[in-house]
């Protein structure tokens, strides 16, 4: 409960951010960037267990090695970044964005160009390296359940079963927004559309399918990534969409949750530096550390079960871990790769369409 409320409060304060930001600039003289170079770096991510893992595996070792002190916030959003850049009062140095949000931010000129003189691209896989950000992380969008209520043998194996109200009574929890959720792709997969025919996404067909299975009343919406864990364990919902690392973390904490990688959707997040960031040098050095330090990278991957764009770390892993990662070739053919370019072009219109559909039209 408390984590939910904190996240909600953070969301509400994001709304006030544009005003607060402009006020701060109005009242204080602008501090010049890097007055004291490379002493702190402010990182924003998604909070919850994920932030704990980031701190333990990457940020602490980075601090030890470089002397730069990272401070990690939980309220990342494109809106917050945009408000800071537009008001000229940039508080964040390194910001996590979903891939479609990254492409939007590039379009709107909100990002600092990365300095590949500071960030060595030796450890970076080709897919992860971009001019204005690093696609540092790949995760799986999965279907999850609580073993207390649904034993693994009866668990859904694909999205058709997941959405089938006759098979599982009760509600499904779905992320309320689409930049981080692949529920529309899931609905198309449930309708039997093959992986290579999902894009361009037929939004209307996906919504029509959801309206029938499980129906509008069969869905409830979560707004924070930690909510499904609580909704599943309390039995409030029968099934939920979530991310593989969130479920793994909850399992390590003793929750009897499980998920299947079959039919999951692999997507990625970027780390970006906002235009005008005060400690951009430090941010570049952190990016360099994350992409090239083998020991810290391997620790991150083993703790989170996520792919980190860090080739030396990936090479160090035992095959049992490597095979379970979102980018493992073993999963090819059973998972869908999200089309970031399609989403970047269609995100806003689809968000509006989805919201309208949720409201009943």
């Amino acid at each position, binding site marked *: 409960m408390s984590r939910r*409320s904190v996240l*909600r409060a953070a*969301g*509400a304060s994001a709304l006030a951010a544009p005003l607060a930001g402009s*006020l701060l600039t109005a009242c204080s003289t602008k501090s010049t960037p890097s007055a004291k170079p490379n002493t702190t770096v402010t990182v924003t991510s998604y909070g919850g267990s994920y932030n704990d893992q980031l701190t333990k595996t990457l940020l602490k070792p980075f601090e030890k090695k470089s002397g730069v002190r990272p401070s990690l916030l939980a309220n990342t*959003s494109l809106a917050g970044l945009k408000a800071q850049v537009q008001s000229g009062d940039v508080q964040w140095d390194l910001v996590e964005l979903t891939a479609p949000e990254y492409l939007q931010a590039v379009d709107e000129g909100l990002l600092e160009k990365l300095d590949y003189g500071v960030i060595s691209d030796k450890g970076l896989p080709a897919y992860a390296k971009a001019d204005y950000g690093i696609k540092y992380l790949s995760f799986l969008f999965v279907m999850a359940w609580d073993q207390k209520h649904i034993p693994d043998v009866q668990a859904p194996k694909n999205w058709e079963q997941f959405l089938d109200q006759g098979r599982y009574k009760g509600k499904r929890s779905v992320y309320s927004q689409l930049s981080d959720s692949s529920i529309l792709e899931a609905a198309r997969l449930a309708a039997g559309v093959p992986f290579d025919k999902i894009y361009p996404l037929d939004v209307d067909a996906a919504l029509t399918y959801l309206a029938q299975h499980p129906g509008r009343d069969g869905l409830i919406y979560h707004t924070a990534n930690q909510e499904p864990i609580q909704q599943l364990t309390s*039995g409030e919902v029968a099934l939920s969409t979530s991310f593989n690392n969130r479920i793994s973390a909850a399992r390590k904490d003793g929750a009897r949750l499980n998920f299947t990688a079959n039919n999951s959707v692999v997507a990625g997040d970027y780390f970006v530096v906002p235009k005008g960031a005060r400690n951009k040098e430090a941010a570049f050095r952190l990016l360099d550390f994350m992409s090239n330090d083998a020991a810290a990278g391997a620790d991150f991957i083993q703790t989170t079960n996520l792919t980190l764009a860090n080739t030396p770390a990936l090479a160090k892993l035992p095959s049992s871990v490597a095979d379970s990662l979102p980018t493992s070739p073993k999963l090819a053919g059973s998972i869908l790769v999200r089309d970031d370019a399609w989403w970047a072009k269609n995100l806003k219109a689809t968000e509006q369409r989805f919201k*309208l559909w949720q409201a009943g039209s």
Partner: protein
Amino acid sequence: MTSTVTPAAASASAGADAPRRRRPRGTWLLLLAPVLAFDAVLFLTPLGKLVAASTHGDAYQRVLKDPLVSRSLLNTFEISALSTLATVVLGYLLAVVIWRRGPLARVILFALVLLPFWTGVLVKNFAWAVLLQDNGLVNTALQGLGITDAPVALLHNRFAVVVGMVHYLLPYAVFPIFAALAAIDDRLELAARSLGAGEASIFRRIILPLTVPGVSAAGLLVFIISTGFFITPVVLGGPGDMMIANQIDFYARQLTDFAGASALALLLTVIVSVFVAIYQRILRAGGEYEAG
């Protein structure tokens, strides 16, 4: 600055030969200065920026054409009207009970009104969410008593939003109505009784008319507060119960359309200002009623 004097000094020097009312001109402006400065920095400047941001591009056109906006405007009025009605009816009953009790019972009943008033809205909302969910206390009790055999949908719908809002709003209705009741002269009731009036006609012909200004003030106050609700529809409502504040949040955070969000925020400000103006008139009319 030479003409300005502190109020204490002014009244002391004027007190000897002139009526106490006369104060040096400009003092009131000086007294107002801190508030004006505070207002200018914290309210007028951001409001100005909001107005400027909303004129960016065709924000108003875009927002007014959006079917989601008309939907959430309609929701805002429906939910606010429902909550106001429920709050005023419950608030009236509660105020009458408190008014009719002795001093000790009054203190206890007021404490019961004030305690939730001082509790954070999030705490109250999550408490309702726990109570109303499918496997929550209410549904478990209903099924345990055999009244229903499947969970009744109590959460994530309009019912839950109104329940949560009424819980928050009740004190705002109780206090103005109680104030109106407390202002009624006891002798009116004695006079009515001596002329043979029964309880029902005392209520209908004396108490109800005399509390009308209090009730309308309470109703408008509650309605004005209702239109700005944000957290309650998020926690207790379903996607169909989006209010205008949630719509602003959607524009700002998900669409990152700050111009649209500003336009919507101004729209809400204008609508609420109209109601505030009506509220002020009712208060004034209420004052005249009592004086007459």
